[in-house]
């Protein structure tokens, strides 16, 4: 019985193929968004994890910030605005790094400033991002070299004019199969000797690491960037279990160095890996919630569309319903036929939506990979089953009322409606 009634539902859909497809549009879009959120979400997670694998829990970052009041996140956006408006915090110095390095739980660390400049070698020119860092950068970040090595603390203190370049920078300045070690590169009208080439790394922290030039921080301050401050420091703890105490010690020390009495007026912020993860989570969760909301709206609109079409279908087939009731169809059998029809429509929409969503997710990962991001295309049977279950539930939910109407028709009135 169920088999034959199901067949009736299917035949009814085949009679109106265009209407059936149009009705599914909302469901298609909704299901596609669900798949995109799940698939792209999983892809992003992999991507972010890949980007921060070098972030070990022992690391602390101290960054400058514009003093203000309010909550942590407000402070940060305030900093971004102020920096954008040209406010520069110049209070953090190399001495701060040296002082912090004396703390008991700090194993190593380096100060950092970021800049940009034009580098030339012969007729080749390349504008690259400068990482002005201390010599410890190599160990803390785990740099590997295809040629030469990194500068030492002695070279940094002696203001020696040496640089380490990323693989792309090397290619553009010296060509692909060359050994630039010992060669000179001009920056800011001064000559620098290349002492190392970093192995190809791809993107990390969402930066293309192969397009970076490393210069000893003190050399860079005096001879390239023309500044006497640093923008951040990275510190490696001996024991991460004492993180909270260590953060407190750093804060106390820097407040003393910077003459700050009110912690509200801090011109720096100490970040832990937990903080970074928290920010990433907040952002990705926010986006996911927004997209799921969009999916929910689309699915409800799609569901109402199905309900509408099912009401039309019941009205169109009142005569058929009357006949079936007259020859002995129980209300439940009629109800089943129409609910099944609604489920078929929404399931069709669900299947098309899964295909569309998977297609878009694949395209996103394909494009991301083209621009060098490690962004995998992730789709699991769980995602598909989840999305299809939603569409089936929608079909039942929104098909119920029209089906109920069909089932409760009076056979004589329904027959006479022909």
């Amino acid at each position, binding site marked *: *019985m169920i*088999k*034959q*009634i199901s067949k009736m539902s299917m*035949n009814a859909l085949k*009679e109106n193929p265009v209407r059936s497809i149009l009705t599914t549009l909302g469901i298609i879009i909704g299901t596609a968004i669900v798949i995109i959120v799940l698939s792209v979400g999983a892809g992003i997670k992999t991507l972010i994890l890949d980007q921060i694998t070098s972030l070990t829990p022992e690391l602390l970052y101290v960054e400058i910030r514009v003093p203000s009041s309010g909550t942590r996140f407000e402070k940060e956006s305030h900093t971004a605005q102020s920096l954008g408006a040209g406010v520069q915090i110049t209070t953090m110095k190399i001495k701060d790094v040296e002082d912090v390095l004396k703390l008991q739980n700090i194993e190593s660390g380096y100060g950092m400033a970021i800049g940009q400049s034009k580098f030339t070698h012969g007729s080749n020119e390349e504008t690259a991002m400068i990482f002005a860092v201390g010599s410890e950068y190599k160990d803390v970040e785990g740099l590997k070299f295809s040629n030469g090595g990194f500068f030492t603390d002695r070279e940094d203190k002696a203001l020696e004019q040496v640089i380490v370049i990323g693989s792309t920078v090397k290619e553009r300045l010296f060509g692909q199969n060359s050994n630039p070690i010992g060669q000179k590169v001009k920056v800011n009208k001064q000559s620098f000797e290349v002492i190392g080439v970093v192995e190809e790394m791809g993107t990390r922290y969402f930066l293309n690491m192969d397009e970076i030039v490393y210069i000893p921080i003190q050399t860079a301050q005096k001879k390239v960037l023309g500044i006497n401050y640093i923008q951040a420091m990275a510190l490696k703890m001996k024991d991460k279990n004492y993180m909270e105490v260590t953060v407190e010690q750093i804060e106390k020390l820097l407040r003393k160095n910077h003459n700050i009495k009110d912690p509200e007026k801090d011109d720096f912020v100490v970040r832990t890996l937990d903080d970074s993860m928290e920010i990433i989570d907040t952002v990705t969760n926010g986006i996911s919630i927004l997209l799921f909301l969009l999916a929910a709206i689309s699915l409800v609109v799609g569901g109402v569309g199905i309900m509408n079409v099912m009401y039309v279908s019941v009205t169109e087939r009142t*005569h*058929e319903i*009357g*006949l*079936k*009731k*007259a*020859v*002995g*169809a*129980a*209300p*439940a*059998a009629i109800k089943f036929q129409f609910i099944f029809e609604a489920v078929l429509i929404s399931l069709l929409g669900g299947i098309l939506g899964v295909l569309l969503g998977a297609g878009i997710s694949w395209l996103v990962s394909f494009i991301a990979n083209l621009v060098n991001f490690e962004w995998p295309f992730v789709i699991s049977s769980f995602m598909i089953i989840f999305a299809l279950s939603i569409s089936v539930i929608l079909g039942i939910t929104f098909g119920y009322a029209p089906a109920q109407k069909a089932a409760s028709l*009076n*056979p*004589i009135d329904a*027959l006479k409606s*022909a």
Partner: protein
Amino acid sequence: MALIELKNVCKSYYSGSLETKAVCSANLKIKSGEFIAIMGPSGSGKSTLMNIMGFLDVPTRGRYYFENKKVTSFDEDSLAEIRNKKVGFVFQFFYLLPRMTALDNVKIPMIYADVKDKEQDKRARKALKQVGLGHRMKNRPNELSGGEQQRVAIARALTNNPKIIFADEPTGNLDSVSAKEIMKIFEKLNKEGKTIILVTHDSKTASYAKRKIRLKDGLIQ
């Protein structure tokens, strides 16, 4: 023992506070195997009476006993089951589903009786042969003449082997030759033991029946 017994059955329609009695104080006994014609002019309530006896409509007053069971207290599901298994309907306008073949149309009542596929096919073919349409099984209603369509409808009414066949103006839409053929089929079915209850205003059609009940203004004369 009466197959059908109506006691003081009334059916009224209300529009606002205005009551219109379609059937009033109907008392009737029908025995198994009878061939009855319910006659009367249009609007006399004969169709309403048939619909009540055929479980398609419920009376507003009175009691209806079918096989000595009080039907007036049955719920929707039980009524559906009785319609499915105990009675068959033949209507003036055939009421075949247009997109199905004759064979599939005949199968519809069996779907709701949960008859197995193979058995459905066997019984539907047999019923169609019985009404002389063995060669038209795969045709759709619009490929059949009025008389042929009505014969498909009769075959559909027969498939669950009902006790009673209700026919509401079965020849009302047919030419006289087809009408005669249809009435012969009913006559044959009655001889084979089916109870036939026929509603008609046409005395020629009614002449096939063994007993006539006349209705006027909702009252049995």
